[in-house]
């Protein structure tokens, strides 16, 4: 090595450069594969809970119904996969301890098998293939990771299986117009914003202009399709409401340095920036924006639910103070229930479930995905009982007929108005409508002062597609 320009021993020959470049290229490729879990993929299923033998449909006695889920259990996606699998596991155990699912003289006990998708297409496909072909699971749950899920969804169709997709990938599936009869995929969830249906983002833009008085709106989102589409959806609403879009700024997925994005936002003539990004990224941005003085120039609004536990760990209370959040998270849900704005039973059940989950899985973060995982199993149980069978047609029929009265004793997240619009206190009717659109009532909430204060419940209806 050298620190001067001596030409002899320290100079690098052209072939050395090519060697270095080739080595680097191989290294980059292999490192990229390792990050995405490609190549080998851990297809080995892990029995998360089990009971009984075999699987199947009808016949009397006790049978096992096996649910398979290719889900990110390691890697960056595990922050989504671990809570989900925890929720499903707890639900399976609750169902089995209650005696299973009774249908026409047959008792079905549930078994839940997972395989690590690593949130990567190759690993996800291997994991799903293993569950379907080696473990012969009876049905699949979606894996909460669109990248991986979309890589293996055709396996479900090819094997004529039923799939319950209650996660992020439902948005992509509906955008794609995925055509398959044996899929249940609700694409919006009430009372937590983890899986925002893009059309639901529209009211944020309208409300921001008409009610909060923001005229020039800037955006900060991840540069993946979800983020870009979010900018378009809210931006259209802003312009239709009479506001202007001051600029659209993106950041790379997983970014933690927002200094350049902040510099860009500062150069825009905006009075608000709508940051629709993942919780970790949002709070990193919030802290850096505070340090850089961006908040003296514009209001910061989060259009995605930052969970309180993430907020508490990632930023101090004084940094969390003063930003607006278009989302309803757990503590505000309790407060909204106490104020009578929403029904109290789901919020109370959620609180209790959270406590159980945290006692059971102290090392995992509790978030909306744990709730969703739990409720996926409960919805499955409800669908089977309503339809009286576990075959694909019965499941499709059962899911399609679920109404508010079917879920009101267990749901922690669904609030169903009678006709899909803003309602009063009476709730009836189907919980999922055409295309599995889940109806909801009060999905927008404005809260201020970090995570400590519930301010106002914003009902979606008046701001929908105006």
């Amino acid at each position, binding site marked *: 090595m050298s620190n001067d320009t001596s030409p002899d021993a320290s100079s*690098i020959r052209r072939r050395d450069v090519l060697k270095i470049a080739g080595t*680097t290229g191989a290294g980059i490729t292999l490192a990229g594969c390792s990050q995405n879990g490609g190549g080998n993929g851990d297809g080995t299923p892990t029995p998360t809970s089990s009971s009984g033998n075999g699987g199947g449909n009808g016949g009397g006695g006790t049978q096992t119904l096996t649910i398979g889920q290719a889900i990110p259990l390691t890697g960056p996606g595990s922050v989504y996969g671990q809570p989900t699998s925890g929720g499903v596991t707890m639900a399976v155990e609750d169902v089995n301890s209650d005696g299973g699912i009774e249908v026409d003289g047959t008792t079905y006990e549930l078994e839940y098998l997972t395989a690590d998708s690593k949130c990567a297409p190759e690993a996800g496909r291997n994991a799903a293939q293993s569950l379907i072909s080696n473990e012969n699971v009876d049905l699949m749950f979606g894996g909460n990771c669109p990248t991986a899920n979309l890589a293996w969804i055709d396996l479900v169709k090819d094997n004529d299986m039923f799939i319950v997709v209650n996660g992020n990938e439902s948005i992509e599936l509906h955008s794609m117009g995925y055509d398959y009869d044996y899929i249940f995929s609700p694409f919006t969830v009430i009372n937590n914003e983890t899986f925002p249906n893009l059309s639901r983002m529209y009211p944020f833009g309208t409300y921001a202009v008409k009610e909060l008085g923001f005229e020039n709106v800037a955006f900060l989102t991840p540069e993946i399709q979800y983020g870009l589409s979010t900018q378009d959806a809210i931006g259209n609403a802003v312009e239709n409401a009479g506001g202007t879009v001051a600029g659209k700024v993106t950041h790379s997925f997983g970014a933690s340095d927002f200094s350049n994005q902040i510099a860009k936002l500062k*150069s825009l003539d905006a009075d608000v920036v709508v940051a629709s990004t993942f919780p970790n990224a949002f709070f990193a941005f919030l802290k850096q924006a505070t340090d850089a003085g961006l908040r003296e120039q514009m209001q910061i609004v989060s259009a995605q639910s930052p969970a309180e536990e993430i907020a508490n760990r990632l930023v101090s209370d004084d940094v969390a103070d003063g930003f607006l959040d278009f989302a309803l998270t757990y503590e505000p849900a309790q407060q909204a229930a106490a104020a009578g704005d929403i029904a109290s039973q789901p919020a109370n059940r959620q609180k209790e479930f959270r406590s159980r989950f945290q006692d059971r899985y102290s090392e995992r*973060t509790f978030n909306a995905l744990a709730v969703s995982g739990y409720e996926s199993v409960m919805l499955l149980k409800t669908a089977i009982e309503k339809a009286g069978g576990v075959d694909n047609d019965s499941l499709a029929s059962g899911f399609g007929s679920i109404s508010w009265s079917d879920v009101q004793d267990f749901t922690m997240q669904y609030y169903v108005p009678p006709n899909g619009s803003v309602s009063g206190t009476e709730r009836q009717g189907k919980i999922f409508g055409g295309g599995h659109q889940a109806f909801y009532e009060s999905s927008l909430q404005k809260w201020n002062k970090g995570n400590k204060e519930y301010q106002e419940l914003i009902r979606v209806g008046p701001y929908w597609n105006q």
Partner: protein
Amino acid sequence: MASPVSQLIINGLVTGSIYVLVALSLSLLFGILGIPDFSQGALLMLGGFSSYFLVTDFGLSLFFALPIAMVLVGILGIVEQRLTFGYLEGRSEVALLILALALFIFYQNAAAILWTAESKTFPVPELLDGSFGILGGSASYANWLAIALALVSVVTIHLFTRYTLTGTAMRAVAQDRDVAYLMGIDVDRISMLTFGVASALSAMAGGLLGAIYSINPFMGTSEILRAFVIIILGGAGNILGAAVGALFLGLLESFSTFYISSKFTTAIVFVAVIVILVFKPTGLGGG
């Protein structure tokens, strides 16, 4: 509205400073020992986590936690050399690369299992709380500290390798390992020392990243990939070249993110590398 150029330059310098530290680490290992040690990206992460635990669990100030973390990870680097790389030094580059990748993946996933995949932050000392501006741009005191430490590291390593006996021995090993051995240089000791120093530099980068942003088990990936680009730009084994390359990269990313888009930043960086290598295959710092 004030021109953002000053701010972009400061942003670029901050980013470049982190890259400088990792690039120095890699430049030492690749330049002296010929080892493309990808695992330095994971050691950066371990430096971040060490700093985090020292601050949050032991209540130490970052000013103490950071050097302790550097020592701890430096020792880990030496252990790594003794138990793994030491057996392959001077041999197949492909085997070294695979070993480095294996360690990289192992460390990251072990950290994710032990400490979960979520991001964590830790408080900075009051002395670093706040920001300082110059010529229309500003940065937090922690950012300025990163710039200062990067500068000190470059100067220290440069002077060390150029003017000390051990540094001269390092350069001798870099030129010809076998001849250096024949000349009586303890090549094993040089190797251990190089790993220790390089790992400590990576740990410093990780601790600073944690203080400025946050830590997670998968941090260090983009930094190590950029470090490889930087040593190509700057010339492998060329300390000052690596520093120049790192700062160039930081500024390029800063300006391209602002004036074009973050979507194209990585592509722009690699196009720049290709263009430079076409016209100057020995890199910006090569002879």
